[in-house]
C-alpha cells in the first residue's frame, strides 16, 4: 500500500462526494444547499487539483484537466453567490440558487469523470 496513492484517491473521491452532497436536493430551494458545503467542495477540489500536478502521463493530463474544469465551475458558482448576496445585498432567490446548483452540477460531472479515470487506471494496473 502506498500512502501517496491513498491520499490521492481520498481527495479525488472526497471532491466527488462533497460535490454530490451539495448538488443533491431541490435545485431551487436554498435550504437544501448550504454555503459551508460549497466552501468545502471548493477547498477539496483545489487540493485535488494540486495533487494532480506533475504527473506527465496521458491519463495524468486528463485527470488534471477534469479537475481544472471542476474548479472553474465551482468558483463560478461561488462567484454568483457572492455577487448576489454579499455585493448586491439581495436575499437568496430560487432562480439564483438554481443557477448556482446547476454550475455545481457541471463540476459534479467533471468529478465523476475524474473518479472513473482513477478507477480505470487502477484496473489497468491490475491487468
Amino acid at each position, binding site marked *: 500500500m502506498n500512502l501517496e496513492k491513498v491520499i490521492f484517491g481520498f481527495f479525488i473521491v472526497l471532491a466527488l462526494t462533497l460535490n454530490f452532497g451539495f448538488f443533491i436536493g431541490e435545485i431551487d430551494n436554498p435550504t437544501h444547499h448550504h*454555503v*459551508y458545503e460549497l*466552501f468545502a467542495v471548493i*477547498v477539496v477540489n*483545489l*487540493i485535488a487539483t*494540486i*495533487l494532480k*500536478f*506533475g504527473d*506527465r502521463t496521458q491519463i495524468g493530463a486528463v485527470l488534471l484537466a477534469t479537475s481544472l474544469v471542476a474548479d472553474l465551475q465551482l468558483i463560478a458558482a*461561488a462567484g454568483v*453567490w*457572492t455577487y448576489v*448576496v*454579499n*455585493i448586491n445585498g439581495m436575499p437568496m432567490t430560487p432562480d439564483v440558487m438554481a443557477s448556482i446548483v446547476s454550475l455545481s452540477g457541471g463540476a459534479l460531472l467533471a468529478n465523476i469523470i475524474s473518479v472513473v479515470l482513477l478507477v480505470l487506471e487502477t484496473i489497468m494496473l491490475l491487468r
Partner: protein
Amino acid sequence: MDQIFWLILMRMRRPLLVLIGVYSIAILGMVLVAGPEENGQITHMDFFHAVYFVSYTSTTIGFGELPSAFSPSQRMWAMVCIYMSVVSWIYSLGAILALIQDPAFRQAMTERHFARSVRKIKEPFYLLCGYGEAGRALVQALTQYNIRMVVIDKSEDRINQLSLEDQTLPVHVPGLCADAEVPEHLLEAGLKNPSCSRVIALTDNDTVNLKIALTSKLLNPSLKLIATARNEETKLNIASFGTEHIVDAFEIFGETIALSLHSPDQYLLREWLSGVANTPFKKPAMPPRGTWIVCGFGRLGRFLVNHLESEGLPVVVIEPNEDILSGSHKVVYGRGTEADTLLDADIKNAVGIFAGTDNDPNNLSIIMTARQLNPSLFIVARQNLGANSALFEALDADITMNPGHVLANNIRGLLTMPRLSEFLQQVSSYDNKWACDLFKRLEDTIGTETIPDIWEVKVTEKHSPGILEVISTDQLVTVEHLLIDAYNREMRLKVYPLYLVRAGQGRLMPEKETVLEIGDKILFCGVGHAYHRMKLLLNDYYLLQQVILDREVPRSSVMRWILGTG
C-alpha cells in the same frame, strides 16, 4: 517548454497545498467564530468577507477589522490566522525563490530561451560547435558577411565572452553553454531546422568532434559538415561517413610553408586572393632556402619537418623529449630557450627558425634568444593563445602562426568562396612560372595593392535575369561585355575573370571573347566598386544592351517607337 512547465508544477505542489490548507482553515474559522452581537443576536461573518479578511491579512497588508469591529473571539482567531498564514506565505515564497535559483531550472530556462531564438532564425545559418580561438575568429569573420550562426560550447566562460562580443557583431549569434556531445543539445541548436545549412565542429577534443559529426550525419544526412581533427585515425574515421571537409590547422600550415618554399608565386597568388576583401595587401615574407631549426617536434613540428625535408632543406630539430623523436634529421636535446642549445644547433649558419612548441612564453623566449645570436634569421612563431597577440605583434616575426586563425581562415574560404578553393586547386597543378605570369597580368590590369572582391556570376534566370533576357533575343554576350563600366562605356572595370565552369568542366582564365551560355558560372576578382557595377549589368537588360551595342537604348516603348528601334 514542457520540461520547465512540469518542473514548476512538481516543485510548487507542496507550497500550494500548504497555502490552500491554511487559507481554508483560516476562512472557515473566520466564518464559524462568533461575531459581535447585534440586537441581542450573535452575528457571523459571511464567506465573502472572510475571504477578503484572510487575503489582506495573510499578505500582511492589514486593512484592519472589516466590515465592522470584531468580537473578542474573532480577534482571537484573527491572531491564529496571522501567524499561520504569514508563515505559510514565507514558506511558499521561499520555495518559489529556491526554484528560480535552482541550477537545473536556470539551465532549463536558458536552453529554452536559446532554442526559441534559434527557431526564430529564418535565413540559412551555420551551427558551430566549439568557441575556442578558431571558433571565435570564424564568428568574427563570417558575421561580417551577415551569415547567421549558432554556437554551442561546453565552457561557460566562452559563452559569456560570446554574449559580450555579440553586442558588437553585425548579426545576433545565440550561444548555448552545453555539451555538444549530447544530441539533444544539437537538436536545440537547430540540427533539424530546415534553415540550418552546415555544422562546423571545432571543439578542442577529437572524440567530441567525431561524435558531433556522427550525430549530424545520422539525424540530418543532407547537412554539410566541416570538422577539425588532429589525430590521423580520427580524420579517417570522420571521413569514412561522408564528412565534406576535414580541416587541420597544422596540416594546412605545413602545406602553406611548403608551397611558399617551392613555388613562391603560387603562394603569393593564393594569399592575395584568399585574404579579407578590400583590405591592403602586404606581400608575405618568403621563407629562404637553407638550414632550418625547428623547435618542438610535436605534431606541428613533424608536419613542418616533413615538408622542409621534402623540399630538400637540411633541418635541425630541438626537442627536450627524447621519446617522440624519430627520423634522420640532426637532433639537439633541449628546449631551445637557452643560448647553448641554439648554438649546438648551429644557429649561426641557419637561415630560419620555427618556434613551434605549444607554450607561448617558450616560443617568445626561443625567438628573442635566437635573434640575439643571429639577427638575420627568418622567424616563424607559433602563437597558441589569442590573449598573447600584443606580445607577438611586438615580437614582429616574419610569419606568426596562430592555429585558430589558420583554421578560421581556411573555413571562411570554404564557406564564403567555395569556387575559389576549386580554382586554387586547379592552379596548383601549374608551375611557379605560370603563377608568376598570372600575378603579373593581375598586377597590370587591376593592381594588387588591395585584396580583391571575389564573386561568382551565375548565368541563370534567378541570378542574372539581364543576361538571360539578352540571350533570349539571340544576341551574344561575351565575358568582355561584362567588364565594361555601365556608367561610362569608355572605361573598363578593374575586374579579371579567373575561372569558368561550363557543364561541370572548369576552365582557368577564360578568354574575353568567350560567349556566355545559360548555366555558366564565372569567377571574377575585382577591386573597388567593380562588383557593384557588374551587378547592375547582370540584372538590367537595358544597361547590358547599351554595353553590347555601344549606344544608348531607350527604355520606354514610346521612345523606341519614335526612334524606330522597336
